């Protein structure tokens, strides 16, 4: 792959102080976001996918959450070392974020127009009011909001869920960011609206050439939107690969299990689904060794003792499992 790397996350460790001590919500996570491409982060609740994105934005809840170590490099600029006022210039300007629930992300007592203006004001103080208004209307039109001249004067509660998410996208894109972090942007939406928003994001990306970090639990959305995928489990990277590779040759037992457990439209009805037995371990009581061990059908004593490193399968495919080669040989021989 020749696309230049825009954002590099290196060995990120993020911790939270909780009553019972310190938990590591993100442990040693590394990935690259390439220019103009979409990186997907997939995993279940508590796997650390949202914490990773908040760490990049430096928006972790204070004072309980903090980055312990690692680097987050935006064009060689380490975001973790920036003073707060410098970081503020990056946030919303070079990296923007949209969230799962647009109603809680938008301010309910301000008109839509004001909320879009805010972003422009903050980063482009030289723009005149007339220009900002013109730009705001143009932004709303771009994200497919009908009659933007009127909508700009409405409040968030007057819009539907899909429209609110469009407004969020308009705000996020106001300053033409290089990276858009989308944290479960369509999870709260109906499927037909989800299809609209995904289509919109794709076309906006094509037009502006921005990179997207797409966080979701939905493998279907990943397959549709992403170029590269990071699969996370209990705070760690289980597998990392190009999207085609990942879906064709998943190597980690967790990825395999996840893919097998979603009902497929081609499956005969009422057939037993494959499952991953058990539950994700609590972050406060993580076992030593591999974090997936208690649910893994391939576990061996070694998995209980040592945490498997991220091994390279080939150029663009990494997996964190001691037995991936064996497992692969076994499944291929069938």
């Amino acid at each position, binding site marked *: 792959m020749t696309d230049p790397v825009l954002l590099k996350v290196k060995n990120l460790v993020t911790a939270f102080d909780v009553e019972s001590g310190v938990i590591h919500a993100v442990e040693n996570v590394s990935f690259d976001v390439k220019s103009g491409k979409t990186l997907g982060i997939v995993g*279940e*609740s508590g796997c650390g996918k949202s914490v990773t994105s908040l760490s990049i934005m430096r928006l972790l809840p204070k004072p309980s959450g903090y980055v312990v170590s690692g680097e987050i490099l935006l064009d060689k600029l380490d975001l973790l070392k920036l003073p707060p006022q410098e970081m503020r210039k990056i946030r919303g300007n070079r990296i923007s974020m949209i969230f799962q629930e647009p109603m809680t992300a938008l301010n309910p007592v301000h008109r839509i127009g004001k909320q879009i203006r805010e972003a422009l004001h903050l980063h482009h103080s030289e723009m005149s009011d007339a220009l900002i208004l013109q730009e705001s209307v143009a932004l709303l039109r771009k994200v497919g909001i009908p009659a933007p001249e009127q909508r700009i004067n409405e409040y968030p509660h007057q819009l*539907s*869920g*899909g*429209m609110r998410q469009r407004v969020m996208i308009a705000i996020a894109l106001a300053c033409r960011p290089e990276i858009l972090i989308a944290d479960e942007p369509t999870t709260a939406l*109906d*499927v*037909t*609206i*989800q*299809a*609209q928003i*995904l*289509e919109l994001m794709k076309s906006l990306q094509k037009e502006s050439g921005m990179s997207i970090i797409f966080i979701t*639990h*939905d*493998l*279907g*959305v*990943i*397959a*549709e939107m*992403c170029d590269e995928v990071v699969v996370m489990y209990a705070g760690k990277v289980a597998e990392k690969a190009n*999207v*085609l590779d990942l*879906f*064709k040759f998943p190597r980690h037992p967790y990825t395999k*299990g*996840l*893919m097998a*457990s*979603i*009902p*497929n*439209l*081609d*499956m*005969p*009805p*009422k*057939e*037993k*689904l*494959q*499952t*991953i*037995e058990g*539950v*994700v371990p609590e972050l406060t009581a993580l076992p030593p060794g591999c974090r997936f061990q208690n*649910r893994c059908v391939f576990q061996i004593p070694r998995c209980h003792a040592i945490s498997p490193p991220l091994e390279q399968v080939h150029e663009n495919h990494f997996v964190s499992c001691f037995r991936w080669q064996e497992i692969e040989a076994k499944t291929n021989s069938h």
Partner: protein
Amino acid sequence: MSEYLLEVKDLKKHFAIFGGIFLRQIATVFALDGISFGVKQGETVGLVGESGCGKTTLGRTLLRLYNPTAGEIHFKGQDITSISQSSLQNTRREMQMIFQDPYESLNSRHTVRQILEEPFLIHQIGTTLERKKRIDHLLEVVGLPASAKDRYPHEFSGGQRQRIGIARAIALDPQLVVCDEPVSALDVSIQSQILNLLLELQERLGLTYIFIAHDLSVVKHISDRIIVMYLGHIVEMIKSTSIVENPLHPYTQALVSAIPIADPTVRKEKIILQGDVPSPIKPPRGCRFHTRCIYVQDICRTQFPELKNYSETEEHRVACHFAGELGRH
């Protein structure tokens, strides 16, 4: 006796909205506006549709958790539309519900034992010892350890809590279980565990399910037949094996095409619907779907399409003036 375990005819449920200074009725929500269908013993009927289509209201009205505005509900041949609360209690033994949110639907101050004992107490069934045995058995059936009895709901994960909810629903050996989005709050890997459990219980106990969900791939997987709803109406009733290949209503077609497929090599042509679902307070005239339909004609704006059968070999009802004539994706 009809061939159906449960049958509804022209069921309507309207909610009044009160407002203004004198709290007069200022509007009506047409949540269900003429729903008719039947459910056979032992089958699973899936209800799909987007938020606000009335699927949850339908599930609740079937169990008379809401009183219907008009129409009839027959359960095992008996008209239960307007029977008294006391006669309803006996019927409710045989129709139970599993709720979406396993966090909200279990009393957090009760132990699992108390939660599971409650149905027996309400219906005055068994001695203390018999109830105890029954609870142990229930826990085993839903795959929870016997030690779970003395713990509280917050000590369990979402999936385990849903198992408790399921145990409670099947405690009295019901015939019909209405599952209202039972897996949508759960993680993918847990979702499949619960779906398998529901399938297993159906086989074992001969349960009849009404399965409500917004996720078409889940509904298709678990159902024999699927009812697609839009703004308080049924737009299509179809065998689940046909829904992907042969949906006839343009809304069903869009719904099917909008499901993201977990295979990056598949690039299917999507039907992207424009706009949002209109408000059920002011549903559009004529076909409810006409404001978003890509095939809309003049007749759709004025005339309401009846639900008609389109197949000679199986039940396949569609409410569209042009069903069967439209292009398939």
